[in-house]
């Protein structure tokens, strides 16, 4: 019966319409608007699991395709579809949104209905980004997403929220407009915005390099890569917990998604030519930002820097592919790098969301994010401490958690390219453990630091619910990642096959 259902459209528009509904009627009914938002986001999550169950992992084609003409004058179409790359990210999006709704339950006091509406609308737009097969449709969602996020940070954020949110907006806007110019240039060559038409378009190396740089500006800001990462710590620190979760879990992944959907296949030769540069940037992010994370006093800032460092693995995994292919390595090794990067994206989405929620749990009680204000939390919040232990270990890349799988695969494939790259990248295992566990030690262990900590209540059932969900997800992916790889395998094979062919005419 679901065969004819426009599943992807439903995933986009159900949360958006739900959000608008909450916005219009919810201001007087706090309780029911919360329930409504929870029901909508849960339904959307359940719908999105259909994507997983009905996905044909053997097909290289786009699935669940929807097509209708949008602006016929310029051949712009409402063209949706998913493949093995987008499905995991969509699941991550719908899953995290449910968590965010649960997490705001008693925490957000001002303009609750607007808060919920912003997140629901944001969810629809984010799914739109992952399912668009038309470059302009993609850009439409990509930019529109900035508006709810701008408001979320600005309205419900901390004391420095205005600076942080304007910086966030302008940084990402600045990056994206170059992508728009690149897309329009491609259109002037090809006469189409269909992404797979652009894949086929032959381009000279110089053209490819310019287009690659334009894409890079958009995606590098979003991921974010060193040295354009500086908006992220600000935005994370000032955003409300839900905002930080969505930022870390999904918004950063859009940069990665952009690389794998646009940069790699549209400009493979430029990618190959600039792989060295990209790898160096990734390594700087991994190592240097790792050290920066080590000295942070603020927990959210620490996790933000840890995000930058971990996302370095994603870009490393993407661009090590070219290095492997150049050295005549097998395509299988290249696929491994990409799979590792994808795995890292999903896993980081879960772990960083979990860590931000943990900080949120403590912040709601103590109203401080400073590490120095805590100490001995384990004495008063033992259940919470054990959850956070798991997530801290996952962030450090402990085998058995999802954090291990992605990093391991990327490091392994780096060995095929260059042992030194692998060695440098592997320092993350030490650095990550150092900053995460050191923070954990200072916050959770030791003697009870002050009265506030002494008076802490352990996690409520509501908080347990979202932490438990995340813990299960992190362990599941860590112990049994095979389903995720099966999902991506065919698509990634196809992608590597595509980018190994030169497009230069």
């Amino acid at each position, binding site marked *: 019966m679901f065969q004819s259902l426009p599943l992807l459209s439903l995933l986009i528009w159900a949360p958006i319409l739900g959000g608008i509904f909450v916005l219009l009627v919810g*201001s007087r009914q706090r309780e029911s608007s919360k329930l409504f938002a929870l029901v909508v986001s849960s339904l959307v999550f359940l719908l999105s699991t259909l994507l997983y169950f009905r996905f044909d992992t053997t097909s290289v084609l786009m699935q669940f395709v929807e097509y209708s003409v*949008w*602006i*016929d*004058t*310029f051949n712009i179409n409402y063209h949706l579809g998913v493949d093995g790359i987008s499905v995991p990210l969509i699941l991550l999006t719908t899953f995290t949104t449910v968590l965010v709704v649960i997490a705001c339950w008693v925490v957000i006091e001002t303009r609750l209905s*607007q808060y919920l509406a912003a997140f629901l609308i944001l969810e629809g737009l984010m799914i739109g980004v992952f399912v668009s097969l038309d470059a*302009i449709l993609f*850009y*439409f*969602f990509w*930019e*529109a997403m*900035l*508006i709810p996020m*701008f*408001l979320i940070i*600005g*309205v419900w954020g901390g004391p420095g*929220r*205005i600076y942080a*949110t*304007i910086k966030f*907006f*302008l940084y990402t*806007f*600045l990056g994206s*407009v*170059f992508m*728009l*110019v690149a897309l*329009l*240039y491609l*259109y*002037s060559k090809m006469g189409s915005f269909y992404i797979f038409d652009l894949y086929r378009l032959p381009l000279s190396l110089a053209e490819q390099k310019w287009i690659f740089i334009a894409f890079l500006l958009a995606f590098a800001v979003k991921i974010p890569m060193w040295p354009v990462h500086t908006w992220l710590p600000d935005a994370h620190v000032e955003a409300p917990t839900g905002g930080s979760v969505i930022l870390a879990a999904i918004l950063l992944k859009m940069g990665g998604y952009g690389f794998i959907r646009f940069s790699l296949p549209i400009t493979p030769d430029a990618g190959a030519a600039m792989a060295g540069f990209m790898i160096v940037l990734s390594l700087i992010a991994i190592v240097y930002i790792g050290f920066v994370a080590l000295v942070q006093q603020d927990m959210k800032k620490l996790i933000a820097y840890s995000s930058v460092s971990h996302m370095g693995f994603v870009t490393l995994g993407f661009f090590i592919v070219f290095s492997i292919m150049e050295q005549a390595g097998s395509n299988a090794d290249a696929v491994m790098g990409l799979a590792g990067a994808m795995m890292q994206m999903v896993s980081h989405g879960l772990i960083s969301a979990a860590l931000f929620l943990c900080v949120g749990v403590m912040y709601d009680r103590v109203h401080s994010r400073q590490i120095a204000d805590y100490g001995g939390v384990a004495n008063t919040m033992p259940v919470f401490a054990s959850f956070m232990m798991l997530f801290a270990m996952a962030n450090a890349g402990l085998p058995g958690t999802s954090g291990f799988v992605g990093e391991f695969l990327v490091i392994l494939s780096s060995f095929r390219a260059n042992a030194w790259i692998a060695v440098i990248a592997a320092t993350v295992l030490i650095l990550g453990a150092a900053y995460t566990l050191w923070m954990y030690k200072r916050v959770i262990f030791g003697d009870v630091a002050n009265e506030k900590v002494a008076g802490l209540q352990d996690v409520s059932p509501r908080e347990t619910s979202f932490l438990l969900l995340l813990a299960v997800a992190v362990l599941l992916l860590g112990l049994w990642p095979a389903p995720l790889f099966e999902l991506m395998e065919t698509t990634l094979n196809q992608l590597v096959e595509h980018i190994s062919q030169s497009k230069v005419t």
Partner: protein
Amino acid sequence: MSITSEILFVLPELALLAFACLVLVCDVFSKSPNKLLTYLLAQASLAVVMVLVIWLYPDERVALFNQHFILDPLSAVLKVTVCAASIVVFLYSYHYFRQRDLLQGEYFVLGLFAVLGMLVMVSAYSMLTVYLGLELMSLSLYAMVAMNKESGTASEAAMKYFVLGALASGLLLYGISILYGVTGTIILPELAAHLGSPVDNRIVFLFGLVFVVVGIAFKLGAVPFHSWLPDVYEGSPTAVTLFLASAPKVAAFAMAIRLLIDGMQPLHVDWQGMLIVLSLLSMAVGNIVAISQSNIKRMLAYSAIAHAGFLILGILPGLQADQGSTYAGALFYVIAYVIMSMGAFGFIILAGRKGHEADNLDDYQGLADASPWFALIMLLFMFSLAGVPPFLGFWAKWYVIKEVIAIGHIWLAVLAVLFSVVGAYYYLRVVKLMYFDRAETAPVIGADTQVRVLISLNGLAILALGFAPGELIRICTAVLGF
């Protein structure tokens, strides 16, 4: 074609002229202090003219009166835009002046004459008709700016506008006279034919061209001929600012198209260079100076300068059908800009009341708490003006950039988008004031139901056109014959 049948084609203009005189007479004899009759008659005449324009929609170009006057699909679309915009402006204005006890029938009479001037400009096919229309429009506008006799700033603004406007008209006329002196014609297509044939006195043409471009740049408010614009926008009563920022932009755009493309397409390469400079300067100065403004009318005035820069960018491709380069992007842009700018200036009227003009940015602090719906509408206007999807303003920028890239000026496209990022900052600041700041005294929306409904519709239109711009894009390409 005989004169009698030609008269049929200018029926809208003739009707408007008759109506304007009728309104003037009625107003003299009307005793009613609320001027309801004058107002309704003025609105009715605009509506009738609009219907006539649509009724007379030409499928192809019809040149009339020895080629002084042209009726083509482009002119019909622009005339409908002018009339529709003026109807909306009159609605706001009536509310605005009545609330402040400044209602004068002359406002509507002058407004109608200004619209008549615009219609003539839109349909002008000779340099003289362009000038006639331009003067009819400008003189009405000068007087409208000075409507509020009590206000010193308004008188100052009107004076500035008049002196500088007269100077610009003089320069334009000088350019026209040079071109006439060299070619012996004032008819635009004949001028184009002259310029197209190989000539040895090209430098004289360029000399004339420069003055014409200056005149156009002044009317569009492009840097470095923009200095009147912020002062006039700020000093005028908000209702007049609203008028200045809407329909006359369409007329100025039409003037640019008629003179540069219909009349001087052979000098394409030459005026293209001038327009590039004007456009870049406008975008740079407009966007950067707007950041430091504390008066919202002034801020929007600088934003209008920046938008004029973008509009000029859209005129660059000219009209070379064989190479597929058209100014359709600029046409789309001007229509979209009129819709957005009416919303933004209308919002100032909405937020103000007698004794409180709401023209400082700080007056909008905390609006989202006091009035979430209207704050949301203003948010739509601001993001749309900044060019962020999913709003109409995005497609306007998108379309212009697409055309600019299509003619190969990629570096220009890059600069344009960079400036629009700079511009985003001051629009964001308005959103910041409304949503992120708390006010000591909550702002009150003082407007009546009509204005509230109108502004809501305007905001929703921007959203709806952002999701479905296809039809408007189709019209814009269709009227250029593609």
